């Protein structure tokens, strides 16, 4: 299953709740304001580190760069993707759940 999170973890509880229900082997895509969850040095870094143990986490680079960040700023282990990659992830997984 692919989970998508488009909200900043500081602003809303979407990422936290997504991680509660994501199962081993699931994929999680952080996009729009969700990319802030992928960054090093924030209060939520340990949450993502924990999530990485069981899920594959992706960050949408166009959303990252729009907000003045680069892959250098992203937690190790989080993978880069773009809109084409987002499409691939959606096709590869049987269902997609948006954590609005």
């Amino acid at each position, binding site marked *: *299953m692919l989970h998508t999170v488009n909200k900043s973890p500081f602003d809303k509880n979407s990422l936290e709740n997504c991680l509660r*229900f994501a199962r081993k082997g699931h994929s999680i895509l952080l996009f729009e304001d969700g990319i802030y969850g992928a960054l090093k040095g924030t209060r939520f870094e340990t949450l993502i580190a924990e999530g990485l143990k069981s899920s594959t986490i992706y960050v949408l680079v166009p959303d990252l760069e729009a907000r003045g960040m680069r892959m250098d700023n992203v937690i190790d282990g989080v993978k880069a993707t773009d809109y084409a990659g987002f499409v691939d992830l959606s096709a590869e997984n049987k269902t*997609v759940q948006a954590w*609005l």
Partner: protein
Amino acid sequence: MEDEVIKKFLYVNRKAPYGTIYALESLEVVLIGAAFDQDVSLAFIDDGVYQLKKNQQTSVSSGIGVKDFSKTYRALEGYDVEKLYVDKKSMEERGLSEDDFLVDVQVFDEAQMAELMEQQDVVLSF
């Protein structure tokens, strides 16, 4: 007939009622969707559990000036929409129990809810 496909639809409700329209318009999708004979489940997570709170009181001419639509949840049974699942943690951290809800629900822990999500073909989030 194309319509003979039966898919598992899960409606995920994570928002409180009245502050935004998502709860109401999600319910409208569920009601229309009931005519399609699919396998339908509703999940109530986070503030979504507040949608089911008993004793909601407002009308166009009183209260906040917005219609109380909570009775519609009671009508779901008549449409054969009977699989309503509430996230245990969301319920408990809000100090709520099953007695607070206006319809019968099943309370699921995280593992059960994750399993439910896993089984779906279509997940619609509101």
